[in-house]
Structure formats: C-alpha cells, structure tokens
C-alpha cells in the first residue's frame, strides 16, 4: 500500500488494528455461544420444568375419574366421587384496592362456617400477589353450588341497590357498595374414593388413601386399569387474537366387574362377626381367633363369590382402627416396638448389671416380651404400622398355614389317579404308626381297626392316609401336590398373594415328612390354593385359575376386556374326581358316629366336604388351625365354601373342628337358597324349627329377586320391597353420606320346602320365576 501521494489513507497498521478488533469480536461471540450452550447443558432440564411450572396458572389439570368396582349384580363396591377444594386467589380478591375483600369474606363465612375467615383475611392482605392458596378440602358439590348461588344473589341485589341509589342521586353511596370478588375464590376439582358399604369385602377390595394409588386387594392389583389419564385445560390465543381455552378431557379409568356377590359376602361376614362375638373371651381373654377366613366360590369356573376375613376395617377410613381387634397381632411386633406401642421408654442398652445378675439375658428378654404381650390393648396398638398392615392384608391369600386333614382327599386322589391304590383297599388303624424313631398318632388314639380308604377319609384317619402316601411314594405325592398348585401362586387377581413356597416340601423330604404330609402337616398352603385345588378335585379334575374380575368396562359400559373361566390343567381324571367326591360326601353324609363333618350339613341338603385340624408350630403350644371345606350339592357341586379358623379361642382347640363346621353350615344355610340351590332332603321337625329361627335373620339376595322379577315382568306391586338395585346402590353413595351400612332385605322362607314366601300374601313362590305356585304343583313339593 502506498503512503506517498494521498496523505489520507487507511494505513496497513490501521488495517491490522481493525482485523485484531474483528478477532476480538469473534472471540466474544465464541464466548457467548459457549455460554448459551452452557445454560442449556447445566440448567436446561431445570429451566424446562420451571417454564412448565410457570404455565400452570394458564393451564389447569382436569383430574380423571378412577373406575368403580362392582359386584356381579352391578352393586357398586367402590367409586370415585367429585369433590372440591376451596382455593383463594388473593391477587384477584385484592383488586380495586381491596374493596372486594370484606364482601367476599362475608359470603365465605356464611357458606363455610368451618373456615377461619380471619386467617384468610390476614393471608390476603399480606400476600396480595398470591394466586393459589388451598383452604378447604373435599367439599361436596352441594356446598359449592350453594356458595355460588349466594354470590350471584348478592351481586344482583347490590346492582339493584346501586340503581336505586343512583336514581335518588346518591352516586357516591352507590359507588361505595362493593361486590364480592367472584374470581377471588374458586373450587378445584378432585375425586374422592368412596366405599358405600364401609367394611364389606374390605380385604378383597383394598383402598385408596391419596393420589389414586391403590393399596391392597383389587385396588392395588388393578391400579393401572382403574386409573385414567389426567386432562388439561389450556389458555391460548386463537387466530383472532382472543384468549381462548381449549380442554383436553380427562380419560376416566376403567370399571371392574367382579364375580363377587355383595349378598354372599355380607352373609359370610355376618356369620363371621357372630362367631367372633360368640367366642370372644370364651376360654382365654381376647378375640375369638387370631384369624378367620372364608372363601365361597364356584368350583366349576374358579370365580370367587365372597372372600371374608376377620377383623374388618372401614375402607373409607383405613387408618382408623377403632373397634378392630388387634391384640392377636401383637406377637408380630419386636420387643422394642411393643414398648413403643405401650408408651414405655426403652432402656438405653441392656445394662451390665442385668447380665451379671441372672446371666440369662435372652430368656429375660423373651420373658419381658411375654409380659408385654399381656399388657397390650387394642388402643395401644392402633397406631402401629405393622399391626395396621396385618389388619389390611387379606388372610385368604396372604397367610399360609398347615392345612391339616383337608389335605387328605388330595393325597387319596393322587394315589388313585397314578394307580398306586384302587381306592378299595382296607387298612388297619391301631391308633398310631411307627416311622423310624417317630410314632405318629391318629386322632383316635385307640385306633379304629380295619378301615377302607373311604372310611379313612370320613373318620379322618391319619394311619390310612400314611399308608396311602407310602403306597404312592414321595415322588408321586410331590408331583400331585405341585400339580394342585401348592407352593406356587394361584395367580388370583389380588395384590399380596403368598405362595408358601418357603414352607413347601421338596425332593429332599424324608419318610417322616411324607407321613405327616399325607394328612396336611409339615408344609404350608394358602386358603386360595386349597379352595382352587379342592375345586379341581370335585369338579371332574379341571383346575381353574381362581379369579375375581370377570369384565373390565369403560365409562360408557363397553367391554374392554373379558376374563373367561380358564382351565389351566386337568389334574385328575373325572373318575378319580367322582370317587374322591363320593369319599368326601361320606365325611358329611354318613352316620354321625362314622364321620367328622356331619355338623356342617345345612338342613335338607346333600353335602360333601372335609374337616381339618392342624397343629401349629411350636407343637408344644397345642395351638391349632381348624378348617372345613364343603360343597353343595353333593353330587354336582355348585358352590364351595372353605372356612379357616386360626387359633380358636377354645379350651380344647384340637377338638374344636365343630366351630368351623358350624360356621360353614350357618353360612351355607343362608347362601344356598340365595343361589337358587334348594333342599332335596326332608327336614326333621327339629331342623324345621331351627331353620325357621335362622330364617328370621336371613339376608336375601335382593338382586336375584328383582332381576327375576324383571324377567317375568311382574307388576310393581307384587315385587317384594327389597330391591337394592344397582342404581339405588349408586345413589346411596352419591348422596355423599358414605356411611350407608349394607342393609339386607329379609325374606321369609317356607320351612317345609325352603321356597321363598311372598312378603305380602305369604304364598309360596317359585324360586326361579317368583310366581305363586299352583296348588297342584305345590302338593308335589311336600315330602
């Protein structure tokens, strides 16, 4: 570049400076780019969330409605009800220099007496920019409507008064009237889970406390099915530039239709409750038993009608343990937990003194625990989490126990099916059998002499069963045991099932193990495993997976999923099943001297079954689990009832099997007519008398009645006033009372025939059509 002729040139040094400056600018840009990338990398996620969080004022969540749970007749057992939270928007309430605050608070006070208005006032005045403060929760829609109506009324009254004052020329006074701020208070929607029958089927249904998160039972197992998807309401600008709201509706959850029958469930729970009350403090101070479980199911398809336990709790307030028997669970607690529960202060450590003095610290600790167990009361345990879990869990599926003699038919069925025995053998019982070093006794220590296999079942003879098991060998016994589903999950659709696998026999079992296993000792099963396995035993050999939910429907009632009864496998042949059923029938239907289960028979019915009396561990404690598995009708089982009483409150538990058979009988006597299974046998005078007394307290399956009534199109008048229809059930809940006790309807039965009576005329009705029965036909019914 030349410098000479033109003095005013941009020199090369100037150029260099400019280029240097350009590079400085480039460096600065590079720094800024790195900075932008850095913000995205370090804070990107946090800022994305922050941006979404800021939007919440413009977009609100529309909660989905969790699906209901219904029984087989459409009675609603659990549903979600819309409730409202009162939200104060201080920002909108404080507009116009707070002129609207007092009028708004006045209405709030009137509409919601429980609201601390002074607190709202101080909050609004000290936080005028707050847009969201929750004050009251779970308000029912009526109260919200009432509040809105009050606001509307006051605003319209104010406007009339203002007009009047303006006409009179009192403009200032007119302007001084301030309206309540309609937008200063709004109501957030929420759903509250409600269980209209409180304690009914509490263990099966499970509950929801917060956040649509099911706990226990169906609520937990089907949590995802019951839950829907939240919707959202967004504010946005449309093409004309006006702020519009668009709503993405919430998708409601699916409803579960179950095989449960509210009436059968209620019958079972009523009798368990009566049992619990009758036997409280019967021998020892305390509840009637540690646990009571009843499963009533259809043995021909695995559907569960009822599953009941004791104690029960209120699903609407599961944390409240008031009136629930808890002391029998105290043993689950450690010594420290017990001391906590009793409000005792823990010793800082086992002091050296106590060690040196008695030198038996372990014994003294266990002695202490026994003392503590004497001290605990229901009240002292009512806040303990472990105890609550014990109450909430479902005994019928979550607890395992040694089944005892109810296992005997399984052993015999396996032995006949694999041809180890024919079933016609005769064994001699001398009251005990020596196996190695052990002598295993029979229930009758004197021995019953020669017994057929059938008699062995009927009399529940251990020696016969041990002989049968030895004929089978442990390999075959194990194979059948596993085939019947013991030691593995049945797959029932309830949360918290236990398999008992930890306490099942394996190939390592010895001869003594096989001996005791033959009559149901030495290994654990769950009630549902027993009921499902026994169903296969008596229904022709088909094992159905036990199931509760039969259909899943959406909120419009369309079927989303249907669970057909599923035969998992055939375990024994139909002939074997027939034989075993015949054996089991003899348990109930033989001469009382010749069988163990005759007390289980509901008057007038042919029934089969098997009793069980299992010694609990430790054997020295002489505690028992007594049980009865029964089915009706004996020749073609339509309903199976399994009753288990764990540690009955009885002086001689080993001979208390009667408690289980009687409980079974009481339940079945009431359930059978409801299921339209009617007596086939003539009743004795004594039985008629007893039945008449019992029928005075019967619940009647109103649904069956009303449905049948609808089918034959009976006029309104002749329908017995006992309909708890689906709609009524729902209405009860919708009232929001949530306190409805299950109110059964009482219907009279003719003691002679067991047929229902018309409540108005006293006429005998056909159980199917509910039409008065023709005199001619009626005469045929008399035995």
């Amino acid at each position: 570049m030349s410098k000479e002729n033109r003095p005013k040139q941009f020199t090369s040094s100037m150029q260099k400076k400019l280029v240097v400056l350009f590079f400085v600018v480039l460096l600065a840009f590079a720094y800024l780019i790195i900075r932008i990338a850095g913000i995205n990398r370090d804070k990107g996620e946090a800022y994305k969330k922050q941006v979404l969080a800021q939007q919440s004022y413009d977009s609100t969540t529309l909660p989905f409605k969790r699906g209901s749970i219904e029984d087989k007749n459409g009675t609603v057992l659990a549903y979600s009800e819309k409730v409202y939270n009162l939200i104060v928007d201080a920002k909108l309430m404080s507009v116009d220099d707070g002129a609207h605050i007092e009028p708004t608070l006045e209405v709030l006070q009137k509409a919601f007496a429980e609201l601390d208005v002074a607190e709202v006032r101080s909050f609004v005045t000290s936080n005028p920019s707050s847009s969201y403060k929750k004050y009251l929760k779970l308000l029912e829609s009526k109260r919200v409507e009432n509040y809105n109506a009050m606001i509307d009324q006051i605003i319209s009254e104010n406007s009339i008064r203002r007009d009047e004052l303006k006409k009179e020329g009192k403009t200032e006074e007119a302007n001084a009237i301030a309206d309540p701020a309609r937008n200063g208070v709004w109501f957030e929607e929420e759903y509250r889970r409600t269980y209209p029958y409180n304690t009914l089927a509490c263990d099966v249904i499970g509950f929801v406390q917060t956040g649509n998160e099911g706990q226990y039972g169906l609520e937990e197992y089907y949590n995802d099915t019951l839950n829907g998807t939240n919707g959202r309401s967004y504010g946005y600008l449309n093409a004309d530039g006006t702020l519009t709201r668009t709503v993405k509706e919430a998708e409601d959850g699916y409803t579960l239709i179950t095989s449960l029958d509210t009436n059968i469930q209620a019958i079972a729970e009523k009798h368990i409750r009566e049992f619990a009350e009758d036997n409280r403090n019967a021998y020892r101070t305390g509840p009637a038993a540690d646990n009571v479980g009843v499963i009533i199911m259809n043995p021909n398809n695995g559907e569960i009608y009822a599953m009941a336990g004791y104690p029960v709790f209120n699903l609407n307030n599961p944390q409240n343990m008031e009136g629930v028997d808890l002391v029998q669970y105290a043993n689950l607690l450690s010594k420290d937990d017990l001391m906590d529960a009793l409000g005792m202060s823990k010793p800082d450590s086992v002091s050296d003194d106590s060690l040196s003095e008695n030198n038996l610290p372990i014994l003294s600790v266990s002695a202490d625990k026994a003392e503590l167990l004497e001290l605990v009361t229901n009240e002292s345990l009512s806040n303990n989490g472990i105890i609550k879990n014990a109450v909430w869990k479902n005994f019928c599926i979550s607890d395992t126990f040694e089944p005892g003699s109810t296992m005997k038919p399984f052993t015999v069925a396996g032995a006949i099916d694999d041809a180890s025995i024919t079933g016609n053998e005769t064994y001699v019982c001398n009251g005990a059998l020596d196996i190695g070093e052990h002598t295993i006794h029979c229930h009758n220590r004197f021995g019953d002499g020669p017994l057929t296999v059938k008699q062995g079942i009927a009399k529940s003879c251990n020696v016969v069963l041990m002989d049968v098991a030895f004929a089978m060998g442990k390999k075959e016994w194990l194979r059948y045991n596993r085939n019947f589903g013991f030691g593995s999950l049945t797959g029932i659709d309830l949360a918290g099932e236990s398999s008992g696998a930890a306490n099942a026999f394996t190939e390592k079992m010895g001869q003594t193990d096989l001996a005791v296993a033959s009559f149901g000792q030495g290994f654990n099963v769950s009630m549902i495993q027993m009921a499902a396995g026994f169903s296969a035993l008596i229904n022709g050999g088909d094992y159905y997976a036990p199931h509760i939910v039969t259909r899943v429907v959406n909120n419009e009632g369309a079927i989303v999923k249907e669970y057909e009864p599923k035969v998992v496998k055939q375990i024994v042949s139909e002939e074997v099943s027939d034989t075993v059923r015949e054996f089991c029938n003899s348990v109930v239907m033989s001469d009382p001297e010749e069988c163990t289960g005759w007390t289980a028979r509901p008057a007038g019915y042919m029934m089969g079954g098997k009793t069980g009396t299992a010694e609990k561990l430790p054997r020295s404690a002489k505690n028992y689990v007594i049980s009865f598995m029964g089915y009706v009708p004996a020749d073609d089982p339509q309903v199976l009832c399994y009753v288990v009483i764990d540690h009955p409150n009885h002086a001689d538990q080993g001979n208390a099997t009667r408690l289980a058979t009687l409980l079974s009988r009481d339940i079945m006597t009431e359930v059978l007519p409801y299921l339209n299974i009617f007596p086939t046998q003539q009743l004795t005078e004594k039985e008629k008398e007893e039945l008449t007394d019992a029928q005075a307290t019967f619940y009647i399956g109103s649904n069956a009645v009303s449905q049948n009534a609808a089918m034959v199109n009976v006029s309104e008048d002749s329908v017995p006033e006992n309909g708890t229809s689906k709609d009524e059930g729902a209405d009860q809940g919708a009232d929001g009372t949530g306190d409805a006790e299950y109110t059964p309807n009482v219907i009279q039965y003719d003691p002679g025939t067991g047929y229902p009576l018309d409540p108005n005329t006293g006429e005998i009705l056909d159980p199917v059509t509910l039409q008065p029965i023709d005199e001619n036909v009626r005469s045929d019914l008399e035995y």
Partner: protein
Amino acid sequence: MSNPRATVRSKKERRYGIADRSLIFIVLFLIVFGLIMIYSASAYSAVRSGHNSNYYLMSQLRATLIGLGVMLFFSRLDYHILMKFAWTAYFASLILIALVLTPLGMTVNGARRWLNVGLSLQPAEVAKLGMIIFFAAYVCGNLRRVQHLKGIMKTIGFAAVPALMVYAITDNLSSAIIIFAIIYIMLFVASPNSAPYIIFAGALVGIASLVVYVVASNIVPAEVSYRLGRIEAWLNPEAYASGRGFQTLQALYSIGSGGVLGKGLGQSTQKLGFVPEAQNDMIFSIICEELGMFGALAVILLFVMLIYHLLIIATNAPDLFGSLLVTGVMTHFALQVLLNIAVVTNALPNTGITLPFISYGGSSSVFLLAEIGMALSVSRSLKVS
C-alpha cells in the same frame, strides 16, 4: 465477494462500482427474519394490551420500509459529500438530544427518550449515526492532531459531550456507552499508537470491576442507585427472581428450555407474558427458545458475516474517510449485537440494548439501515483487490 466481476457495465456503474451484494442479502435476510420473530414474540402481548396481534409487526414493517428507502438513498450517495456535513451532523445530534427536554419530548415506559416529530424518534439513534460521520471526518481532517496525547484528549472531549448528554438528558446509559465506545474505537484504529488507548480502556474495566466488587461484597448498599441494583441482580438473578432479576431470569429460562433445536417457530411459552419486552431487548431469548441453540448459532453467524463484510469494506476503502466511516458502522454493529446477547445470557448486567434488525424499534432500524447504506456506498468505490 465485493469484486465487480462483470466486464460490461453501464456508464453509471463504471463510475460508482457495484455495491456489496452479499451484504445486502445478509441485511435483507436479517430484516425478514427479524419481522418473523417480532410477530412471533409480540402477538400475545399485542393482544393483551388491546391491539391487533400484528400491531408490532406492522409498525416495524413501516419503519423497515422507510429504512430501506434511506439505505437506498445513502448507498447511491457519494459518501464524500457527508464530509461536508460533519459539523452539521455533530450539532444536529446534540440539538436533537437537547430537544427531549422540550415539550417535543415523549415518555414511553417511564423513560423520556423520544421525540415526537410526527413519528417517534429516538435522538440517541440519530446521534450514533451523526457521531460516526462527524468523527470519521474530524479524524481525517486532524490526522496529525490525534497522534498526540493532547489532541487525543481533545478529541475524546468532543466524543464525551454527546455521550454525557445522552446519559444525562435521556438517562440512557447503554446508548451513551455505545456512542462513546464507537468513537473511542474509531480513534484507536486511526491512531498510530495503541498503548494509551489500551491503558485507558484497561482503567475503565478496572473501575467497572471495582464497582461490581463493591456491590458484590455489600460495601455500598445496592439501594443507592437502581444501576447498582441491576449489578446485584446480575450477580445473583435467582435471589431477585420476582424483582430486578425477573427479566434476566425469565430470559435464561427461555434459553435453557429451548434445547438444541428449540420448541419450534411460534411455540415459545415464555413470550406469553413471562419475558418482559420479548419483542424488544429480549428477543434473542425467544429465538433461543423457539429455534434452539441451532437458531441462536445461525443468527450469530449471520451477524459475524455482516461484520466481516464491513471489515472487508473498511480495509479496502479507497480513502481514510471511507474506511473510518465503515469502521464506525462495523463497531456499532459489533457492539450492539455483542452487548445485547451478553445481556440476554446474563454475561453483563441488564441494560436496554436492542439486537440490530431483529429487535422491535423503528428509529433504531431506520438509522442502522442508513449506516448500512453508507457502507454500501463505500463498497461501490472499492479498489479491485
């Protein structure tokens, strides 16, 4: 790129040469992109304040059309003529700034920075153009004087007057800083010795750091002045999330939530009332949110290309006046873009600086386009290199 390659030219073209077409393209691209972003960023707030959704867009479009006319005018004008109007430009700038004090002055958003002359006009923007013309001419005429310290001080004195006036009268520190910095860098480039400039600049940075230190360590309470408060908010925007740090923090949320490719054009949620002045000083944060880091990089690259073209024109201009003129324009653009992005990313304390051609602002657009016009005029007389 700027070489007139065509062998056959009209008489006129032979006389004036061909303007830098790449520069025109970059500028037009930035203008169109800016209009799109202004619409995206402002539609919501326009409606919220009771206007049509395209209120800001139309207003900017009008200014842009005027600006393009002005650009065309300056690009066809032989830039040497401007030399004769150097003093006029200087005093006209000063007078316009002073006029803000008269009833012609207009207050917008609580700041009295505008003149109401049919249209609203920001004298600080005029002053930037005026000072570039004046000092290019002044240095040309006093080249020897600006080589001595005394002369330099006197020249800086000339520069300080409009800068101080802008600060004192319109209370607009950022424009004052930009005016002073443009002149300072023009002098630095023109002067043969660099040391005093670097020392003086270093001293300024030192003073600024000291002020920041004083605020950061709470020696002087930030309540003394709102500018000190801004420094405090700059150092820790989260602590002032609902107050002075709000705008900065919301801009950072926008940038951070954009990610690599952004939420998509028009999909910003931060513009819905969260980022104040979303169509104005903070528009770059909306670009980051909607177009992501990719979009931000593209915009920065466009500005780098723009500045590079100005650099080429400045270094190849046929005479000192042309070079200095374009140096001033280049400095102006570089400073304005850097400071704007630095503020949006919280690299510097919050101060109102617009992003050239993209931020909403009529005066700014018109005068920036005038500067581009001057640069184009210079580019037409480039030596063949």
